[in-house]
């Protein structure tokens, strides 16, 4: 793997086209991530169609560049406008905005950038260390283990999604049913096509993701009058002293480790990573320092955790095919479009592709660090783009991107349908991200479940194989946990 990594790294660094693409993708990601209302998932979903004409390696450089860039970009609007660009930067604003208010916006952005870089590097190292180990272990898995892992992943993803756990699990099952639309791979029988021939090919992940994460978000923003008055704080000085930076180095390391570990857990996601990182630092320094009023340590903790999480979330994606969060669920869609199925086989059949993921992440961390400092004032100015341009631009991209998947207008209609449905479901309190997870994992679950039954012919196989039994037990606990908690609360005398 190291050979592939160094060969590809050399290729990228000596190719002006690849290097330029990496730089453009990262810049695009930073800009879109910084714009309020455009989440990292939306950024990825909208930019995904641009990668269709690229080879898988080049597509990864483009998509991971945009992914990581948008994660960092989220901190810019959090610090300058007090509006988190992405869910992962919601904690950054707690200390970032007060710093900006007292005239230290530039320093706050520099702290965020440095912490992001350390977190990003931690993520790369963690990805390169843990992914091969997990993939090696996954080689021992057969269809029963895969079936159970999919159930486990789906339960975790539904459980950890924001909002009601019960509705999250129901959403995951809805996604699972949506994954069954189209021709069955074994018998070639069509399911849920309602007489529409186009549905026999199944629901394409890309129009679905663009609708549910792109269009639904714009629809939500349209409910209220648009706020076009965004006066960002001015950036005066950028550099804190070396002593100030060194004093927060430990925080960056601790938070990066937390972000990486949380990222590996399917669905835990960046919001959980930053919350734990921040809480940990508050616990350690809460007696000596105050948090929430412009403490650089708070920014460092949040940003290091947020960016380390990116590398962590890629681990279950490439080793088991389980998305770590909504962003990696969209990335799975990209892999499938390019004919690649995530899982341990990727390490044997396409080691060069795995290397391209490592190189893409390393490149984007480097590019972000080198470009963000000189361009910080430009990013700040971009925050004043009128929302009308932003929203209409996103909408045309949603339509064009959905069409571009298969050059089919039907996909545009699907995107509009799922955008509207996702918006309405979110309005009645149903978390929509688990639907995407179900759609991605459902077909894999069904295939492995039926293969298990065909090969073993008996349900007891799920209880007699130790990994299956252990994972099933954990899954049952995950599903039962909210019920047990509710029961305990009811039984506890007030």
């Amino acid at each position, binding site marked *: 793997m190291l050979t592939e990594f160094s060969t590809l790294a050399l290729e990228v660094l000596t190719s002006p086209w690849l290097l330029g693409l990496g730089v453009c993708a990262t810049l695009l990601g930073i800009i879109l991530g910084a714009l309020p209302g455009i989440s990292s998932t939306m950024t990825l979903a909208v930019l995904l*169609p*641009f990668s*269709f*004409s690229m080879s898988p390696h080049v597509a990864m450089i483009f998509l991971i560049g945009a992914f990581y860039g948008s994660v960092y970009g989220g901190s810019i609007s959090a610090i300058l406008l007090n509006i988190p660009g992405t869910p992962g930067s919601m904690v950054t604003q707690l200390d970032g905005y007060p710093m900006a208010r007292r005239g230290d916006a530039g320093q706050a952005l520099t702290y965020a950038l440095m912490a992001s870089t350390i977190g990003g590097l931690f993520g790369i190292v963690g990805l390169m260390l843990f992914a091969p180990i997990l993939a090696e272990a996954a080689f021992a898995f057969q269809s029963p283990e895969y079936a159970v892992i999919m159930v486990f992943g789906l339960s975790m993803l539904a459980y950890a999604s924001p909002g009601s756990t019960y*509705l999250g*699990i*129901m959403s995951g*099952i*809805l996604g699972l*049913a949506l994954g*069954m639309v189209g021709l069955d791979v*074994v*018998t070639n*029988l*069509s*399911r*849920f*096509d*309602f007489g529409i021939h186009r549905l026999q090919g199944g629901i394409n992940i890309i129009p679905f993701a663009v609708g549910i994460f792109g*269009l639904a978000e*714009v*629809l*939500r923003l*349209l*409910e*209220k*009058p*648009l706020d*076009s008055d965004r006066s960002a704080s001015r950036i005066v000085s950028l550099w804190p002293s070396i002593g100030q930076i060194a004093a927060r180095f430990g925080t960056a390391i601790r938070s990066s480790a937390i972000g990486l570990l949380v990222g590996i857990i399917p669905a835990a996601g960046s919001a959980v990573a930053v919350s734990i990182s921040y809480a940990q630092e508050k616990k350690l320094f809460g007696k000596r320092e105050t948090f929430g009023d412009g403490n650089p340590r708070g920014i460092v903790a949040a940003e290091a955790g947020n960016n380390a999480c990116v590398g962590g979330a890629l681990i279950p994606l490439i080793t088991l095919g389980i998305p770590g969060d909504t962003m990696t669920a969209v990335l799975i869609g990209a892999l499938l479009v390019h004919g690649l199925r995530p899982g341990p086989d990727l390490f044997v059949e396409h080691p060069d592709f795995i290397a391209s993921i490592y190189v893409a992440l390393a490149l984007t961390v480097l590019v972000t660090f080198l470009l963000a400092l000189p361009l910080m004032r430009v990013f700040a100015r971009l925050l004043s783009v*009128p*929302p*009308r*341009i932003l*929203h*209409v*631009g996103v*909408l*045309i*991209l949603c*339509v*064009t991107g959905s*069409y*571009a998947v298969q*050059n089919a*207008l039907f996909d*545009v*209609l699907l995107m*509009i349908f799922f*955008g*509207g449905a996702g918006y309405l*479901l979110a*309005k*009645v*309190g*149903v978390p929509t991200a688990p639907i995407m997870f179900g759609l991605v994992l*459902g077909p894999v679950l069904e295939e492995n*479940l*039926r293969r298990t*039954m*065909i090969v073993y012919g008996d349900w007891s196989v799920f209880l007699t194989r130790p990994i299956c039994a252990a994972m099933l037990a954990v899954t049952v606990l995950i599903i039962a946990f909210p019920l047990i908690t509710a029961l305990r609360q009811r039984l506890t005398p007030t």
Partner: protein
Amino acid sequence: MSRAGATGKPARRHKAGQAAGGDEERRPALAELLAGGAFAGIALVGMTSLANNEYLELGRTGSDPGPGFVPWIALTVLLIGGVGHILIVLRRALVHGGFRAADGGFSPARLWMPGLMLLSLVAYQAALRPFGFLSASIAFAIVWVVILHWRSGEGLCARHVVQLPAEGVALAVGVYLIFRHGIQVPLP
């Protein structure tokens, strides 16, 4: 000791007020019922589709549980879960004296603009083939740039008559150039 404390009456009233407020908070929103209804409704539609195909009935072909197996399980759980959610919400409403007055984030009055957007998107999609991508996108973009400008509360002045359509045209042409000539997508 204060008078209120001596008589106990105002204190009781305060407590009762708190309980009423607490109950109001505990009351479910009507939208929660819709969530359960949506799941149950989707499950019923899916089940109808499965039931209309005799090959998708439950039953094994050898040891293969068949193409209807996972869909039937998923829809059954969805139906039971949806109905269960409705019952839970109704029970909460019964215990806490009805539904919450303010319905959280769900308000039908706020849906008109998103609804208009969805309708215009369907029209935009339908116009793509007969009118071509560029013309349809320019029309869609100009209309929505103007609507969103109005929605932002900024007034209209003479320069906007040129600026807003120009923004719409620039957006549509920009996307067209990137997709048609940049990544070679054969747009309609």
